[in-house]
């Protein structure tokens, strides 16, 4: 696990890309990893062609969740919203590379889960409040 914290991970952790909020997001979602308390919010802006043309994330948490989310935002820009909804955790694993332990997988995939749920919510419509 200690070999996981390579320079680029620490760099994304300490200098997260696309950090903050969008003024006029098309869709936002946030989630919390109840087991460790990490929180992430994702704001997506989608253009008329269904392409994510801007994205921000915010939140707090460990290097794994923050770096993974930061790297993910770089991928999201330019993607079709439909494809965001279909992302699998492979995209995260490719980003962060080796060494993630099973206990920390939930940290690594938190940003992804939030982005996907934003995309799915936007496409399918959020469920009505009961």
């Amino acid at each position: 696990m200690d070999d996981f914290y390579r320079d680029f991970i620490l760099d994304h952790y300490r200098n997260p890309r696309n950090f903050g909020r969008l003024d006029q997001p098309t869709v936002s979602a946030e989630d919390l990893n109840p087991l460790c308390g990490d929180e992430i919010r994702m704001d997506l802006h989608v253009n008329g062609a269904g392409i994510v043309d801007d994205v921000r994330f915010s939140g707090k948490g460990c290097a794994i969740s923050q770096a993974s989310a930061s790297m993910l935002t770089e991928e999201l820009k330019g993607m079709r919203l439909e494809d965001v909804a279909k992302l699998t955790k492979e995209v995260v694993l490719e980003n962060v590379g080796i060494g993630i332990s099973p206990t920390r997988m939930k940290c690594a995939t938190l940003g992804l889960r939030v982005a996907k749920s934003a995309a799915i919510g936007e496409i399918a419509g959020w469920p009505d409040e009961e």
Partner: protein
Amino acid sequence: MIAVGDAKLASIVADFPILSHPTSRGKRLVYLDSAATSQKPQSVIDALVEYYSDYNANIHRGVYEIAARATDAFEAARAKVARFINAADTREIIWTRNATEAINLVGYSWGLQNVKSGDVILTSELEHHSNLVPWQLLAEKTGATLRFIPVDHRGMLVLEDVDTLLRGVKLLAISHVSNTLGTITPLEKIVPRARAIGATVLVDGAQAVPHLAVDVRALDVDFYAFSGHKMLGPTGIGVLYGKRALLESMPPFLAGGDMIRKVEFERTSFNDLPWKFEAGTSNIADAIGLGAAIDYLDRVGMDWVRGHERELVAYALERLAPLEARGLAIYGPKDPALISGVLSFNFADIHAHDLASILDTDGICVRAGHHCTMPLMEKMGWPATARASFYLYNTAADVDVLVAGLEKAAAVFKL
């Protein structure tokens, strides 16, 4: 400092089989998470094996030999608990799954019977969720309100205005020792004041009974809750102590076998204490296991346990001090006299989870997160902390490994 050759400590360590099993990376296990759950000595494991291999039977209604033996062992364990916390009567000891269930039992049984709209429940800002959420639910159901004893920046309860805080209080529900900071609540400053105004007092002793000598009669509390698994006992067994008259006056909580006296189709009368509160087949084996844990703690002596943890905390504070210049922040009062064997900290900008992961590679087990005290974390502005917690089987060498692990984390994070 702990004398390297302390024979008593060495023999204690040898009693815990897990401590001699290296991790998958071949490291010695340095277990610093006893506040989450303690390790178990061989004698406790043996008590379980003996029950299941020699006299496993259901209790109370069996006339045959092994049923009688099981009943005796089960009730003997209850008597050990009563003596260990100096209860006046064995009937005041109710078996539960854990401290959480014990607290909820009071909430459902005593709470719904006695707490009314407008009543105040006083608790503190450093409670474990298990001694907070049940009262939120009770307040919601009854229309009572919650009030909080504040904590200061060191994590000590602010008790100057305790009489003001106590005004109109029906129930004081407070922890004896904080699981996040280890701070020991000066119950002697609060409980008598609460009693003076007629409040009922429940103490969450989940972090106290394992580490300090507890005397429920000297403390003069109405209810006292704790868990076996944090005091060398098995998982799945906990205790609610309650004053007998109070328990007698309360309606039952769970209903079913063993807690009844007579059942007809339309109505039921309930059994005597303590069984009135023990529905269904009890956790027989683990109650007996907890009895064995108490025997073990008795042999070691709770004064020794407390003294040993104080020494470890003092040694750890001394060894950790140099790292403070590099960004290590230790929370809580940093005074071994005021805390039990718990240290919460953060290290520069290394998130507690990352710290715990890095320490894990060297066999060091610390907890990272909110420790089920989210409101405290929020108030203190800590997103998470790493927590090292000690128990009777920890050694100065464990502290040394922890310090080395933190040095390594600093290197990994290029601090």
